[in-house]
């Protein structure tokens, strides 16, 4: 009989699809909570890809690729006027 784990303590990958809504609702959305989440995310990425003996190119290039994608998304409203066809 597996020990019952609280919904609060499950990681995102272990949450069932039906529980996703309640899981998201239970997260900490205060400014301090958001800051903590950002900090945790940064530290996870930093310790996994950058703070190693022989770091590779992937650590930096993933960040740059993410920046490229994000900036494209932000400028899409400007770019979509250069589309070649009107109806897709």
């Amino acid at each position, binding site marked *: 009989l597996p020990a019952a784990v609280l919904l609060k303590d499950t990681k995102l990958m272990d949450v069932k699809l039906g529980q996703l809504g309640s899981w998201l609702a239970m997260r900490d959305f205060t400014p301090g909570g958001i800051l903590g989440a950002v900090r945790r995310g940064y530290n996870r990425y930093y310790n*996994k890809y950058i703070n190693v003996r022989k770091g*590779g*190119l992937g650590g930096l290039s993933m960040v740059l690729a993410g920046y490229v994608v994000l900036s494209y998304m932000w400028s899409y409203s400007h770019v979509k006027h250069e589309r070649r066809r009107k109806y897709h």
Partner: protein
Amino acid sequence: MLSRLVLRAAPAALRALPPPVAVGVLHTTRPLHTTQKSLAPVPPLPEKGGEVRHGLIPEEFFQFLYPKTGVTGPYMLGTGLLLYLLSKEIYVVNHETAAAACILTVIVYGVKKFGPDVAAFADKLNEEKVATALAMKNESIQTLQTAIEEEKKEQWRAEGHSYLFDAKRNNIAMLLEANYRERLLMVYNEVKKRLDYQVAMQTLKRQKEQDYMIQWVEKNVVQSITPQQQKESIAKCILDLKALSKSAHAAV
């Protein structure tokens, strides 16, 4: 409320700092050495970072899709996604696409050609840093060990102090003894000098008395010899002499 926030966030934040920084920062919000996991000695850095395929997609994504779709699954997903973006013109092909293609070609060529050299250079820099830090650590350990040796030698030397003090005490005792004897001798000499003086005085006095007495007796005797007696004695002497000369003649 904000202070409670800071108190709650501080340990996590301190733990979340990269290990070299976290060791130096003092944990004031948490009692020290109560948990099992302590920060020293610092665990060594991992050798290699997370695997990234084609420099863009982490290996975990491929592993995540492998059970359901096999090896080609993520590539099919990528191709389908790309065609969808192009056909629906969510990704618009314009002048920036050409610029991006040129730039990416150059970047990929540069990385493929100079990647290993740059990596070796960076590794060498890191090695030097680590070597200097290690050398400092070893040197300080060495100095501390020599300091321990020196301390032990000093302790051994301190034990010998008792002999030194004994010798010094003996020296002082001898000095005192010598001084005492010297003064004793001086006393003896002084006393002898005084006694000798007294003896000399007495001898001198007796001698003077003797001389004077002799002189006085002689003087009186000479005075008592009257001229009459002087003539008689001289005649007697002549007679004696004559008798003597006769006997001497007879003997010859």
